[in-house]
């Protein structure tokens, strides 16, 4: 069944697509610049998703409520997908504009590192079956992993970088024409709503996975096959 958030995600994605195709091309880069309507929201979503993982990890350690752990894991999973998308679209844009798919730029390298940090986080979650133990361990790692987020964001300020510094979130006026800014903000909004819809679905799936695991545990014989229930005469023969 489709929920209002999913319908809203589809609607805003469609609007963002139309806006991204309808606005005039960039004066210097031409149509290649339209990749930014996917690249920038993907990068924003990565920060948002990993930020939610941090908050949910702290909340889980404080409350020991497994719902927070599921939110942390679900958000990290979505964040990894969108970090991968930001890296891929960045490379697609980099080839025609910079002339290379990949360059040893601080922002690029650190974003790739952040991608691997959260892949490791997901690997850690998969390595532990018990939801309670998994929750505690991954919450600690989720907090330590967040160390990477400010380093990635400020890398364009700390190092002389090929990647451009912030265009919108900067002191003073945004360095972008109003129609292009509108399309970009539409895309950011659409991706954010999509994130909310995906997060909700993934959390439900995680709840179902944990419930299935718990049911399987309950059905396991407590003391193996050594202990059996009382048998009626002739049943054990």
């Amino acid at each position, binding site marked *: 069944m489709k929920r209002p958030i999913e319908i809203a995600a589809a609607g805003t994605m469609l609007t963002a697509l139309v806006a991204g195709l309808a606005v005039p091309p960039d004066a210097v880069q031409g149509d290649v610049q339209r990749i930014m309507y996917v690249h920038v929201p993907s990068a924003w979503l990565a920060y948002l998703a990993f930020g939610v993982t941090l908050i949910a990890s702290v909340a889980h350690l404080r409350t020991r409520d497994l719902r927070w752990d599921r939110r942390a894991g679900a958000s990290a999973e979505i964040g990894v997908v969108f970090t991968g998308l930001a890296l891929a679209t960045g490379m697609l844009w980099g080839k025609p504009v910079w002339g290379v798919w990949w360059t040893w730029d601080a922002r690029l390298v650190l974003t790739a590192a952040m991608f691997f*940090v959260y892949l490791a986080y997901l690997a850690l979650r998969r390595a532990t079956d018990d939801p309670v133990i998994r929750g*505690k*361990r991954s919450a600690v790692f989720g907090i330590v992993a967040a*160390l990477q987020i400010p380093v990635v964001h400020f890398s364009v300020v700390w190092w002389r970088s090929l990647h451009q510094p912030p265009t919108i979130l900067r002191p003073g006026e945004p360095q972008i024409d109003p129609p292009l800014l509108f399309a970009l903000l539409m895309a950011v909004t659409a991706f954010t709503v999509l994130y909310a819809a995906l997060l909700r679905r993934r959390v439900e799936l995680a709840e179902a996975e944990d419930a299935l695991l718990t049911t399987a545990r309950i059905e396991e014989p407590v003391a193996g096959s050594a202990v059996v229930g009382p048998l009626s005469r002739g049943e054990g023969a």
Partner: protein
Amino acid sequence: MTVWRQAAFLLGFQLRDELRTGEVIAVVIPFGSIALLVIPMAVGIETTLLASIGPGMYWAVVLLFGVVVTQRRTATSNPSHRDALVLLGVDPAARFAATAAASALLLLLFEIGVGLVMIVLYDPVVAGWGWLALVLPLVAAGLAMLGTIAGSVTDGGGALAPLLVAPLAIPILLGAAQATEGLRLGTGILRWILVLALVDVVLALAGVLTARVLEESSR
């Protein structure tokens, strides 16, 4: 017994254990030295090139082999020993502090040993010895705490621990490499020292504050 005394006692125990097994001195330092010997065979043996890339290669070796140092078997990593410490009422924060401090001291030893090998093989311009006396312990402490946390969340290391440590250690690697480059060029390195110190403080807080949770989650 205070937490500090517990940590000091466990630290001594772990260092005596290392003295007996000699894992870092007899195995990891020679292994790291071999890595430094192999790199020129891959990138070329031009001396000016090697002199310029030497410090960078050194830090990469410290990061990657540092994981081996932090994931070594310690006197308190055995589940039965760990359970005994819990029953004795040893504070989990003391156990974290002792393990991280022992790893930091051994990493410092590793850094010095492999650093001497790097100087001999690559002949780089080494400047600012006084600053290095600050950079080396800061890097060792950061890697040690990160490795200790990774070892705890993976319940004793395994194949997963290096995957957790390596990408997260990038701020430490960057701080160390930029500081040595700054020393070579004669530019200011204070901000890189501050980056390293900040990472260390964050990791120390994370390690101490989550030690009890991680002890509860160990099997």
